[in-house]
C-alpha cells in the first residue's frame, strides 16, 4: 500500500505537469500546504478539473487503480478534500485503502 508521502510526491509531480499549461498567475506552488481550490487558491473551474483528471490519470498509471476524486462521496466529506495538497493526499490514501491497494 502506498505511503502518504508517496501520494504527496505523486500530486507534486502532477502540479509540475499541470503548471506547464497554466498561465503564470494561475500556477500552483509545489507544496503540501498549497490550496487546491477555494480561499486564496489559484485554480479556476477548468483548472480544477484539469488538475483532478491529471491526478486521477497519474494514480491509474502508478498504482494501477481507477479512482474518482470529485464525486458524491467527496462532496459529502465533512471537510473538502481539495482544501490543500496534504488533505487531498490523505483522501486518496483512504480511497486506495478502500479499493484494497
Amino acid at each position, binding site marked *: 500500500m502506498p505511503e502518504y508521502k508517496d501520494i504527496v510526491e505523486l500530486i507534486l509531480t502532477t502540479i509540475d505537469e499541470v503548471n506547464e499549461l497554466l498561465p503564470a498567475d494561475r500556477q500552483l506552488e509545489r507544496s503540501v500546504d498549497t490550496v487546491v481550490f*477555494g480561499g486564496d487558491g489559484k485554480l479556476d*473551474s*477548468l483548472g480544477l*478539473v484539469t488538475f483532478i*483528471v491529471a491526478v486521477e490519470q497519474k494514480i491509474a498509471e502508478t498504482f494501477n487503480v481507477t479512482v474518482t476524486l*470529485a*464525486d458524491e462521496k467527496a*462532496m459529502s466529506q465533512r471537510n*473538502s478534500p481539495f*482544501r490543500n495538497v496534504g488533505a487531498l493526499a490523505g483522501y486518496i490514501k483512504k480511497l486506495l485503502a478502500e479499493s484494497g491497494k
Partner: protein
Amino acid sequence: MFIDFFLERFAGEGDKNAIIWQDRPYTYPHLLERISYWSKRLREEKIQPGTVTVLEGDFSPEAVALLLALIEQGCVIVPLTAAVATRKEEFIETAQGEISFIFTPDDQVRIKKLPGKGRHVLYDKLRAEKHPGLVLFSSGTTGKAKAILHDVEHLLQKYKVKRKDFTTLAFLLFDHIAGIDTLLYVLSNCSCLVTVEERLPDIVCRVIEKYKVEVLPVSATFMNLLIFSEAYSRYDLSSLKYIAYGSEVMLESTLKKSAALFPGVAILQKYGTTEVGTLRSKSRSSDSPWVKIGGEGFATRVVDGILQIKAHSAMLGYLNSPSPFTEDGWFVTGDRVEVDGEYYRIYGRDCDIINIGGEKVFPTEVENLIQTFDNVAEVLVYGEKNNITGNIVCADISLVKKEDGKKFIINLKKFCLQHLQPYKVPIKIKIVDQLDLSARFKKVRRKED
C-alpha cells in the same frame, strides 16, 4: 419610446443603487444621467436607427447606459465580452458590425468604425418595423457560431410587468441571453445589480456578504465549485433568498447538498435558450429536478420526447443559418425531457454536443482544429461525464509516425489553447493505434442509460 417604462421607474427611485461595479455603487439618478448623455452622443455621432453596433464590454455603468440608449435609438446591438476574445473578428464579420464601442477596464470608451455594412434581410425586416435588435452568438455544429437576431421590442414585453425587487448578482455574461435577462429583470424592478470581477466561489461569496445579495443566478458547475471550495463557510450568506440555476443539468447529489447547505434559500431551476429567451419557471421543491416552465408569451409541448417551445419573444432567425422553426412556428430545443403532469425533467441535448458547465462544444469544431496539428493522422473528440463541469472534452488521436506521447500531448494542448476558448480544449488526450469510429456514438448511448 422603447425604454420609457425603464426611465419612468428609475426616476421614482431616489438615490437607490442601480449597479455595484468594481466595488463602487452607481445610483439610478447616475444611470439616468448617463443614458441621457449617451442618447445625445449617439445623435452627435450620427448613429442612425438600424445601425449594427458592437458593444464590447461588461455590466459596467457606462456599458449598461449605452445599451439602453442604443435600444432607444433603434440600433441593432451586438454585445461581446472578453470571454469570446478568440472569436471576436469572426463574430463581428458575421453580424456585419458597422461601428464598435469598446469599453476599457476603467469604463472609458473607444469608438471604432467597422467595415461591415449591416446588410441582411432580417435586419431589413427590423428596420421596416423601426424596432431595435440584439445579436447573440451560440455554438454551431461545424464550429462556425450561429448569429441569433432578436427583436428587442418583443424581448422587452415581459419586463413591463413590475415584479419583486431583489439585489441580484450579475453572474451570467453580458453577451449571453441569460445575462441580458438578469440585467433587464433587475433594471425593470429598480433593483441593484452587483457585479463580480471573477466568478470564483470566494470572490462571489465575499460580494454576497458585502452587498447582501438576495438572488444568485448560477450554473450547476458553480454550485459544485462552491461546495468543494467550502467558501460558503467563510462568509455570511444569510441575505440569500434564491439560487437560480440553469444552462446545464444539475446532478441530483449537487442539488441535495445545495438544499442542505442553504436550508432557508429557495433553489430554482431556470430554462431558456438563446433562440427563444428565458422562460418563467417554478421548481417542484428546492431539491427536486422537476420544473414547471412557461409563463406569459410562451407555450411548450413535447414531441418524441424532445421539448419544443413557441414564444412571442423568439428570435427573428439566424443571420447565417436556415430557420430552425417547425412550419407551425415551434422551436425544437433538442433537449430530451420527461413529463409528469405540469412538470418537466430536463435531461439535456440528445446528440453529440458536449455541455461543459453550460457552454456547448461541438466535437467537429475541436476535431477540425486538431486535424491541422503536425503528425495527427486521425482524431475523435467526445464528451466524458464529470462531476464538476458536467462533462469534459476528451480526444483519441492516432499519429502518422511514432513520437513521445507526453510531449506531443502537452504541445497539442498548448496549440489548442491558442486557438480555442479554454473550455473547448480537450482535458484528456489519449494516443491510440487506431480509432474506434463507433466510440462517439457509444458515448452518446452510454449517456442515455
